[in-house]
């Protein structure tokens, strides 16, 4: 394919604005896929993605489009929509020249619409604004056009589509050809290719997704990874149409997959540049800023013998998710596990679920923590990403915590409760702008730990789900923070400790104790639950002793049923963690996460 007929683009959107459905429709209209074959959200290959309706791992697909006697090659590179995955978004953006910005005709511009738009503009991409879901009765495209005009687009740039009915898709495809620039690589220059994704396949080993910037890559070439220096024979090249198709050559401007019998996951760095060993290019592509995790939590296998399996699983996941970090840690309560770092809460959720689902390992996750900077009395500074790493009070001179700037988009009728929530979360008001008369964006500075705690849930409930939200880390500030321990039967359970602001400690301690009281079943003896700060008890509850645990009746010899009930009880017991002499259900470790009052 000649380079001027290639278009590399991605689709960006706020979550649920119909990005994946639009991608499906593009596949269908370019004839890449039969309507019959179309599962909803074809590009999302993980079950988890299809279920949650979010795109987690990116995916590139090559489509052929015919217009005015010319053949065009479209490379559609899928991106995740959520803020936690902005690292991956920027990865895919680097492989593209253009982006389709999808906005839901019923929802309008949302927080991540803007966040993703800015990312795309930072990457010098040409943007095609699309208003999708115009078939819905509640669609209000005129209003959304105004919003888009307010953020700098002109009305004639905007394409109206319904990914559901197919309306507007052809205009969109034509617009892609018209507006998005063709790649401008030099085929004659030495090979320079960007690794923008990789994944591990148990049959083929490591598979990398690449975009050729300059030069030509052929099957059989010997390649070199410029950052790691590792060398490999190119065993195979392929493209995804979206069925996999082997090819012999990839040229400047094109996108494809590379197999090179890479067995060691650590040799492949997403963002690294691939060149030819015998004719290397002079300098690497800029690559990506590695993202630093903002949220940490402990992950432990429920079955202690699965520790090594868990390590293997995390290694494999890290392969195409460079942002995931982990190191082994030990908890007195939970045994051997890993301290894992994530880009955000959703990233954490998705990873935990992938470990459970794709690798079949049941997990206990401890309450997430942000990364604190602690200045000691001897003027040294340490980093604390876990409550149990917090030093003794006597040696601490001050504790700093990460702050974020967050933007909340909401109907203006919820301003009152929103501001109340943000104040309560130790937020400092920065500013407020009206997008139109009914929609407003509010900016606050807020400690990240407050967001990690329960901000999402609270935001959802105080705006009936109408608000959207995005944040970025802006730096560290000193705070009056303390470590709160939870004691069961007089023993500190390390996995339940949290770092909290002193003003919230009493309330938080009370809530956690109440929750635990509800979750921990009665035991053979009374179990006191205490919350303590520096050995000073601030809240207390008691799990009463078990008083009734007997199957009174057994009618007519239905013994099988009795045994089934006992087996269920036995299974339930197995799923609990024994700490000292107390049996604790797995949910207990999550209870410190949630602020919901016990009901």
């Amino acid at each position, binding site marked *: 394919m000649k380079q001027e007929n290639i278009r590399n683009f991605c689709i960006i959107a706020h979550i649920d604005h119909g990005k994946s459905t639009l991608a499906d429709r593009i596949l269908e209209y370019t004839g890449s896929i039969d309507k019959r074959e179309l599962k909803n959200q074809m590009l999302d290959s993980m079950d988890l993605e299809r279920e949650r309706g979010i795109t987690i791992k990116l995916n590139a697909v090559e489509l052929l489009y015919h217009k005015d006697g010319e053949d065009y090659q479209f490379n559609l590179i899928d991106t995740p929509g959520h803020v936690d995955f902005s690292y991956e978004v920027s990865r895919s953006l680097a492989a593209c020249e253009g982006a389709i910005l999808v906005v839901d005709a019923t929802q309008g511009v949302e927080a991540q619409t803007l966040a993703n738009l800015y990312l795309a503009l930072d990457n010098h991409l040409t943007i095609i604004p699309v208003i999708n879901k115009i078939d819905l009765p509640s669609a209000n495209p005129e209003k959304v056009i105004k919003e888009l005009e307010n953020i700098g687009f002109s009305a004639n740039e905007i394409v109206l589509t319904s990914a559901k009915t197919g309306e507007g898709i052809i205009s969109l495809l034509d617009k892609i050809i018209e507006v998005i620039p063709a790649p401008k690589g030099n085929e004659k220059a030495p090979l320079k290719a960007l690794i923008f994704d990789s994944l591990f396949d148990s049959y083929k080993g490591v598979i990398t997704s690449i975009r050729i910037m300059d030069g030509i890559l052929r099957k059989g070439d010997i390649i070199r990874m410029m950052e790691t220096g590792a060398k490999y024979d190119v065993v195979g090249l392929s493209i995804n149409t979206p069925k996999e198709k082997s090819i012999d050559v990839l040229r400047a401007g094109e996108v494809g997959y590379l197999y090179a019998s890479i067995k060691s996951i650590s040799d492949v760095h997403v963002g690294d540049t691939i060149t030819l060993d015998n004719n290397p290019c002079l300098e690497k592509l800029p690559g990506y800023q590695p993202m630093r995790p903002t949220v940490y939590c402990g992950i432990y296998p429920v079955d202690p013998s699965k520790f090594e399996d868990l390590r293997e699983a995390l290694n494999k996941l890290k392969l195409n998710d460079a942002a995931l970090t982990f190191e082994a840690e030990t908890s007195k309560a939970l045994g051997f596990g890993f301290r894992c770092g994530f880009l955000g809460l959703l990233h954490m959720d998705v990873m935990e679920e992938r470990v459970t689902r794709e690798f079949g390992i049941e997990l206990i996750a401890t309450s997430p923590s942000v990364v604190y900077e602690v200045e000691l009395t001897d003027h040294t500074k340490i980093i604390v990403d876990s409550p149990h790493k917090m030093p003794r009070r006597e040696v601490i001179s001050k504790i700093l915590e990460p702050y974020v700037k967050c933007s909340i988009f909401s109907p203006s009728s919820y301003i009152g409760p929103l501001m109340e929530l943000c104040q309560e979360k130790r937020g400092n008001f920065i500013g407020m702008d009206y997008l139109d008369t009914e929609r407003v964006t509010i900016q606050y500075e807020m400690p990240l730990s407050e967001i990690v705690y329960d901000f999402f849930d609270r935001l959802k409930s105080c705006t009936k789900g109408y608000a959207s939200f995005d944040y970025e880390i802006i730096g560290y500030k000193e705070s009056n923070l303390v470590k709160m321990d939870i004691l069961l039967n007089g023993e500190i359970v390390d996995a339940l400790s949290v770092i909290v602001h002193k003003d919230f400690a009493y309330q938080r301690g009370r809530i956690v104790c109440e929750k635990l009281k509800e979750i921990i079943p009665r035991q053979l003896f009374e179990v006191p639950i205490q919350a303590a700060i520096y050995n000073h008890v601030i809240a207390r509850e008691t799990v009463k002793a078990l008083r009734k645990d007997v199957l*009174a009746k057994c009618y007519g*010899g239905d013994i099988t049923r009795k045994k089934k009930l006992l087996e269920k009880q036995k299974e339930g017991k197995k799923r609990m963690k024994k700490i000292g002499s107390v049996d604790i259900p797995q949910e207990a470790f999550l209870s410190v996460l949630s602020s919901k009052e016990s009901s």
Partner: protein
Amino acid sequence: MIKNCYIHIPFCKNICTYCDFCKMFYNQNMVFNYLNALEKEIQSTYQGEELETIYIGGGTPNCLNVEELERLFQILSILHKSSNMEFTVEGNIDYFTEEKLLLFKKNGVNRLSIGIESSNPETLKKLGRNLDISLTKEGIKKAREIGFSNINVDLIYAIDGECNHQLDEDISFLLSLSVEHISTYSLMIEDHTILKMQGEKNIDEDLDYSMYQTICKKLKENGYLHYEISNFSKKGYYSKHNLCYWNNQEYYGFGLGASSYLHDKRITNTRSYSKYIKGEFVKEIENVGISEKIEYQILLNLRKKEGISLEEFKRLYKKELISFYNYSSLLKEGLLVLENNYLFIPEDKWYISNEIIVRLLGCEVYG
């Protein structure tokens, strides 16, 4: 050798709100078809053993009319009965009329089990038991005159709203009947019952516990032996039929929804009337292998005061119990007691017997 037999009669003229057992409204036509199917089931399964216990339960077996009961006994006449057999019929007091009592007597029934459940009219209403409890004394007197000298009554306690005073009244009422056997059940709110659908809640666990303690104390003071978790009797009047379950013995179970334990299989019959009368009797069969058998032996024997006979255990399974389940930590914690080669749950821990059994089964020795 099978020595025990349960017969299920699912018909009731009134459905109790707590009942999750297999039951249906009485209807003459259905009873007729049902008895025919029951006859077929018995004839196809029964191997002619001499039986030591028969228990006709329900439902409300004594709500059948005299002709239907005569037909039932005619069906049961093929069962061989030992000379000292225990033959129980269950029912409500208002259907134990003189005529039916005489009929039972004539057919060898020698034990009656009467569902009283409560003496409080409000509670009875809540339980959906539409009967006149004041008939009880008169009814039992009549049964005695006819010659029934082994009578059980049931009591349900721990019903939401019930107070200790009401429980005391219930116990006094039961004691005034001078029956040989008393079964007490703390109310369980089962799925698919009217109570569950009405959103009935369990009472506070601590109150339930104190009620259980009161019952145990009062019945003991009045000469009843607490021989099994929820059963009390005068000396010599243990329910032989119930003990066959707790002793892990095999038994026949005939009728809709009935369970049987035959030749190392635990069989549960269908609860579907239409399938049953078509002759599709069985719903589920559990094969009881040696390890399951041991599990059953433990969990059933531990219901009894005397617990597990370690000698018998060794005779049955060729090895000591402790080589299958290492219970030494439970002995140390006082959750189990070993005396005279019997392993049992001490009486003051019966209320948590499930927890103890689950722990014991968790002490399995592998290899």
